[in-house]
């Protein structure tokens, strides 16, 4: 019934640095179904951004990938630059955390929008202008005609992020990858942008990948969630399952240490002890074992695979049948 529009399989990303090789992403397999929002949750350095930078072909020069990422019949990891350019910004769009990095500072925002339309869809200037203003209205920018002629620095952070979103949507992409789209924004603005993304998903059937560190953001928008830790997916399930009954100790820990407005305030917040690991010196066995409360001998020696056990997760505790 569901059609996979992006299918990542066995993705590895390695960076060659002066101090040796960094395993940024290891054996990640994910897919996005048509019309759904896949939430990717994890902390800095867990590989959540690099996974999708690799998919977009935007890795730094010292990065190497293996595996495959099939998008509409093309393997993006093996495609040449020309093929990628026909896909990127057209059928596959990306929205970054800082809207200033994706907008050219000296160009009026309207021109930046029409340029995309003229280049990718061959529109003439007049049609492009009309389409751009319509798109600005769709992402709920008030007074789009006036904003059309403004420069990025004249707009607030929330409006800038809407322009970036409008730009991403211009060519009617099948999939929008949003990397921390609301992290730089205030809470009230964040709420509006998330509402907008939800509306785009429901009304226009746009598929999203939502990369974030904030479980609250994922809870409101995603249909399925994948939790990443130290370059690997450690748990993946439907959004309701993962919040109601997380199975991996890391997911449980993340949920527990996020304070909620509904909890009674306690003296001490639950924590996950220790630090996220150094990707150059990953511990043997399960990468999470040094911070895990439920660790046992097998975790130190052997890496658990991502397998069914309540949810799709990588923890021996849930794989009793397989063990």
């Amino acid at each position: 019934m569901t059609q996979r529009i992006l299918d990542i399989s066995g993705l590895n990303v390695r960076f060659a640095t002066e101090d040796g090789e960094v395993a940024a992403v290891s054996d990640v397999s994910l897919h996005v179904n048509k019309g759904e929002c896949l939430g990717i949750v994890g902390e800095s350095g867990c590989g959540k951004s690099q996974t999708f930078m690799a998919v977009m072909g935007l890795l730094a020069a010292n990065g190497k990938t293996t595996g495959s990422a099939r998008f509409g019949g093309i393997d993006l990891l093996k495609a040449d630059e020309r093929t990628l350019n026909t896909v990127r910004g057209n059928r596959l769009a990306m929205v970054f955390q800082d809207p200033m990095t994706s907008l050219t500072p000296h160009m009026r925002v309207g021109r930046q929008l029409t340029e995309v339309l003229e280049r990718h869809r061959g529109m003439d200037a007049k049609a492009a202008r009309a389409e751009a203003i319509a798109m600005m209205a769709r992402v709920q920018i008030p007074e789009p005609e006036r904003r059309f002629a403004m420069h990025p620095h004249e707009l607030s952070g929330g409006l800038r992020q809407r322009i970036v979103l409008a730009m991403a949507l211009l060519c009617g992409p099948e999939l929008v990858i949003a990397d921390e789209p609301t992290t730089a924004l205030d809470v009230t603005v964040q709420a509006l942008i998330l509402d907008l993304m939800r509306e785009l998903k429901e009304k226009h059937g746009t598929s999203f990948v939502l990369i974030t560190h904030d479980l609250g953001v994922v809870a409101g928008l995603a249909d399925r969630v994948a939790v990443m830790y130290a370059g690997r997916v450690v748990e993946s399930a439907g959004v309701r399952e993962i919040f109601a009954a997380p199975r991996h100790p890391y997911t449980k820990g993340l949920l527990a240490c996020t304070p909620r407005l509904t909890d009674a305030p306690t003296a001490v917040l639950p924590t996950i002890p220790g630090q996220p690991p150094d990707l150059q010196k990953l511990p043997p066995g399960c990468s999470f074992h040094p911070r895990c409360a439920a660790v046992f001998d097998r975790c130190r020696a052997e890496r658990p695979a991502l397998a069914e056990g309540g949810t799709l997760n990588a923890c021996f505790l849930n794989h009793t049948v397989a063990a």
Partner: protein
Amino acid sequence: MSETLLDVKDLKVHYPVRTGGLVIGTYTPLKALDGVSFELKAGETLGVVGESGCGKSTLGRAVLQLLPATGGAVAWLGRALNDLDAKALKAERERMQIVFQDPLASLDPRMTAGDIIAEPLRNYRPHMSKAEMKAKVKDMMGRVGLHSTMINRYPHEFSGGQCQRIGIARAMILDPKLVVCDEPVSALDVSIRAQVVNLLMELQRAMNLAMIFISHDLSIVRHISHRVMVLYLGKTMEIAPRDALYAAPRHPYTQALLSAVPVPDPTIARARPRLALAGELPSPLNPPSGCVFRTRCPRATKVCAEVEPTRAQPGTGHDVWCHHWRESGLETKVAP
């Protein structure tokens, strides 16, 4: 809990901003902070929340006299800080410290962790011997959860959470009475955030610290604060004991902020009503007349444009600056 450490009255910080012509410009005051008052007792935490540009960071710095105040008074243990000279101010500052948002940027990259933590000691205890200083630094490192063997390491060799612990150790080494925490956990990962919040609360209890905890994260502020102040465009909207503010917020801005906090629960997140704010944050150079919040307020009426609201008191210690605070707004109880 009785001693009033800090008494801030009508604090104002205005920056002159040049507007207008190329040659003959006029100066318009940017009112970063415009008439904020509060008191703080030992062992108490005041949470300061608001969105970017509301003046919350300015408040922290103006209290510590790191920024010159334009008007109002900051009294520290009964002494006015505003008119102290540099030397007297340095002496008073010994008991007031600050923890910054960006853990790495707040540490000098060329100095070791030990030198960074010892810096206040060098400034305030010039006669302390090297060995004594080192022992004190090592002890402090232990108290903030850092291995004291890391004393010779440099900031770039620590993780973000550890850097923030170094920043906290530096702030705590002189046994301060007041610590301003300016978004101390915003730059940290979720799993590290809780550790640092716990550390701050533990140190506060042990040292009977007064704390000003500035943050945009209302969930964390709720966890750590005794009282909470909500700022908007440099003015106080509402200040109240924690439970009163979160259970029964009176100001529409507070209500909007609370309803926008993302909830890590899919059912609630999708079902609850949201009080959306209309429009954009007005320019602080040209704030609206009357109530500054009126341009985005769902309850705004004619009176809001004409008269600046005065303080109303819906409860003990609960002050709100709104003409319409009695009208029930959105049902903001977030609990299911």
